[in-house]
C-alpha cells in the first residue's frame, strides 16, 4: 500500500497530459460504443446500414477500441509508475501527438478513402478493395497505425530507461533476484513489475506490428514485392494479441494501487506474484498461435502449443490477480463507492471473460467456434466489464469522486455492468448457435439474437456516457498524486 502523502505531486504538465489521455479516452470509448451499437442495430434489422458503411464502421470500431485502450491503459501505468521511477513527460506528450496524428490518418483512410479491411488488415485484403477503397485509403489506415505504434514504442522505451535507471536492469524490475535467487532486498512494487512485463511484451509486439505494416505498405504500391500471407498472419496476430492484452496488464496497476487504499491491506509482492508476472510475460507472447488454430498448414506443435498456452495463460489471472482481489476485499470493511465498485467489477469481468476464451483455445472447440460470435463474446466481456470498468474506476478515483455515490452514478454503474454482461452473453449465445462474426447482414433466423444484443449495447453506451460526463465535469478536482 502506498502512502500518497509521501508522494510528490505531479508537475502541471504531467497532470495535464494524464488528464488529456483520460479525457480523450472517455469520449472515444463512448463514440466507439455508439458505433458498436449501430452495427448491432443493423444486424437486428432496426437500422438500414449499407454493407460498405457497416464494414467501415466495423473497421473504425475495432481500431478505435484497441487504440484507445492502449492509450488509456498507458495513462494508468504512467500515473502510478511515476511514483517509483523518473519518467519523461515530453515523451508522454509526444506519444499523444503521434496517436492523434495516427487517428486523423485512420479516420481519413476509412471515411474518406473508403478503407474497410478490418482493424486486423489481414494480408492481402488491404490491396483488394474491389472498388470500395484504393491503395491511398489503405495506406492512410496502415500509416496511421504505424504512427500510433511509433508513439507507443517511444513511450515504452522511456519506461524501460526509467526502470533500468532505478533498478539496474529489467530482470530486477521483474523481481528476478527475489524470485529465482536468495535476495533479501524488498521486491519492486507491483506497478514496476507490471510495467516491466508490459514494456517487454509491447516493444516486441509493436516492432512485429511495424514490420508487417511496412511489408504490406510496400506491397500496396509495388505488388511485385511478394509477401507470404501466412507469415503476415503470424505477425499480425502476435502484435494484435500482445497489444490488446497489454492494455489490461497496464490498467490492472490501478487495482493493485487503489484497492489496498480502500481495504487498508497490502497487495503483497511475493514469489507467487512475481512468478505469475514472469510467466505472463512469456505466455502472452507464446499464446498467439491460438488465433491460427484453423490454419491447418501451421506446424502441429505450434497449434498444440497455442492450446496449452491458452490454458496456462489463464492461471496468473484467475489464480493470482483475481484471487488476490477477492482476498484483499473479503471481510475488509471496504466502503463501496464508484472507484472501489468499478475496480471490483473489473476483476470479475476479467476473470469471467477468461472462461470462454480459454475454452475456445481448445482446438476441437475452435473447430466450431472460431470466427463465430463466441469470439467477440469473450473479449467484450473482459474488455467492457473488465478493462473499461477498470479505467472508469480509475477516472472516478483520480477526480476524487470517492465516497457515497450519487443517484446517477449508481444508475450508471448498474446499467453499464448489467448491459455489459448481457451484451457479452448474447454474443456467446449467438456463437453457440454458430452465427458468424463480422457479417453486415444476418440471416433471418439470427436476427432475434441481435435484437436483445442491441438493447444491451445501448445500455452499455448510456452507462459509459454518464461515466464520461461525470469524469469530464470533475476534472478540476483531479488529484496530482
Amino acid at each position, binding site marked *: 500500500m502506498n502512502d500518497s502523502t509521501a508522494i510528490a505531486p505531479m508537475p502541471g504538465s504531467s497532470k495535464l497530459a494524464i488528464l488529456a489521455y483520460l479525457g480523450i479516452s472517455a469520449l472515444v470509448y463512448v463514440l466507439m460504443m455508439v458505433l458498436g451499437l449501430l452495427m448491432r442495430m443493423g444486424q437486428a434489422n432496426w437500422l438500414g446500414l449499407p454493407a460498405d458503411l457497416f464494414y467501415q464502421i466495423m473497421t473504425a470500431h475495432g481500431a478505435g477500441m484497441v487504440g484507445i485502450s492502449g492509450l488509456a491503459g498507458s495513462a494508468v501505468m504512467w500515473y502510478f509508475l511515476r511514483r517509483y521511477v523518473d519518467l519523461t513527460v515530453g515523451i508522454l506528450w509526444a506519444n499523444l501527438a503521434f496517436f492523434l496524428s495516427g487517428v486523423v490518418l485512420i479516420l481519413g483512410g476509412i471515411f474518406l478513402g473508403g478503407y474497410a479491411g478490418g482493424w486486423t488488415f*489481414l494480408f492481402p*485484403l488491404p490491396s483488394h478493395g474491389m472498388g470500395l477503397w484504393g491503395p491511398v485509403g489503405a495506406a492512410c489506415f496502415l500509416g496511421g497505425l504505424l504512427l500510433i505504434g511509433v508513439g507507443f514504442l517511444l513511450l515504452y522505451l522511456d519506461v524501460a530507461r526509467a526502470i533500468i535507471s532505478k533498478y539496474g536492469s529489467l530482470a530486477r524490475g521483474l523481481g528476478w533476484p527475489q524470485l529465482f535467487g536468495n535476495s533479501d532486498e524488498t521486491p519492486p512494487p507491483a506497478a514496476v513489475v507490471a510495467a516491466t512485463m508490459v514494456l517487454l511484451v509491447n516493444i516486441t509486439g509493436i516492432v512485429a506490428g511495424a514490420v508487417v505494416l511496412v511489408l504490406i505498405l510496400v506491397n500496396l504500391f509495388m505488388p511485385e514485392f511478394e509477401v507470404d500471407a501466412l507469415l503476415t*498472419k503470424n505477425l499480425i496476430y502476435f502484435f494484435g494479441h500482445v497489444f490488446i492484452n497489454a492494455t489490461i496488464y497496464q490498467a490492472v496497476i490501478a487495482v493493485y494501487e487503489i484497492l489496498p487504499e480502500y481495504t487498508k491491506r497490502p497487495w503483497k509482492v511475493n514469489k507467487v506474484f512475481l512468478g505469475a508476472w514472469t510467466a505472463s510475460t512469456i505466455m502472452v507472447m507464446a499464446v498467439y498461435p491460438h488465433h491460427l488454430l484453423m490454419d*491447418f498448414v501451421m506446424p502441429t506443435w505450434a497449434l498444440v502449443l497455442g492450446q496449452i498456452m491458452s490454458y496456462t495463460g489463464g492461471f496468473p489471472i484467475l489464480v493470482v490477480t483475481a484471487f488476490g482481489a477477492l482476498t484483499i476485499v473479503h471481510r475488509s470493511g*471496504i466502503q463501496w463507492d464508484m472507484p472501489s465498485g468499478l475496480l*471490483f467489477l473489473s476483476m470479475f469481468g476479467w476473470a469471467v471473460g477468461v472462461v470462454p476464451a480459454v475454452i475456445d483455445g481448445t482446438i476441437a472447440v475452435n473447430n466450431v467456434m472460431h*470466427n463465430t460470435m463466441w469470439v467477440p463474446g469473450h473479449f467484450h466481456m473482459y474488455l467492457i466489464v473488465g478493462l473499461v470498468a477498470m479505467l472508469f474506476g480509475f477516472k472516478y478515483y483520480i477526480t476524487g469522486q470517492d465516497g457515497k455515490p450519487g443517484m446517477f452514478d449508481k444508475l450508471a454503474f448498474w446499467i453499464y455492468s448489467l448491459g455489459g454482461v448481457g451484451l457479452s452473453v448474447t454474443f456467446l449465445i449467438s456463437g453457440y448457435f454458430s452465427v458468424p462474426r463480422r457479417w453486415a447482414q444476418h440471416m433471418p433466423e439470427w436476427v432475434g439474437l441481435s435484437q436483445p444484443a442491441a438493447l444491451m449495447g445501448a445500455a452499455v453506451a448510456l452507462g459509459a456516457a454518464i461515466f464520461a460526463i461525470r469524469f469530464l465535469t470533475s476534472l478540476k478536482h483531479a488529484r496530482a498524486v
Partner: protein
Amino acid sequence: MIQDTVLVVTLVLMGAIVAAFLFVAINAKNDGGEYAPIQGRAYAIRSKLFWVLVVAGVLITTVTTLDLPYAATRGEMAGVDKQIDINGKQWYWEIADTSAKVGETVVFNVSAGDVTHGLGVYDQDMRIIGQTQAMPGYANSLKLTFDKPGNYKLMCMEYCGVAHHAMVSDFTVTE
C-alpha cells in the same frame, strides 16, 4: 453437438466465478479483523485451486489433442471417399463438386485465389460442423463425414471485403 458441451462447461465455470465474487462482495463490508488469518485461508484455497486446474488442464489437453483435425492436410487420406477442391474468391466459392452421399468421408482441399477467406460447413440446422481457413498460396484440407442427408451450406468465416456475408454456396448430401 460439441457446442452443447461447450455451453454447459462455460456456464458452470462462469457460474462458479459469479458465486465467488458475489460471496466476497456481500461479505466485504463486514470487518473480519486481522488480515493474516484471512490471507492464510485464502492462500490454502488458492493452492488447492492451482492443483485442481493443473490436473484438469493436463487431462483435458491429453484427451482433446488425441484427435486433431490436421491429419488430412499432412497427407493422411486413409478412409477418405472423396476429395473436393474448393477455391475462395471475392465473393464466391469455386467448388469442384457440390454433392456427396450419406456416410461418405469427404476431404475439402481449400485454398484462395485472392484474399484470405474461411470455409465453414453448416448443416441443415444452420450449425457449423467444421471449418478451415482459405489462404492464398496454401491448401488446408478439411475432413468431414456426412451422417445426415440434406442441404448443407458453405459459408465464409473470415472477413474478406464488402460482400463477405454473401459468400454462401450450397452442398447437397443425398441418401
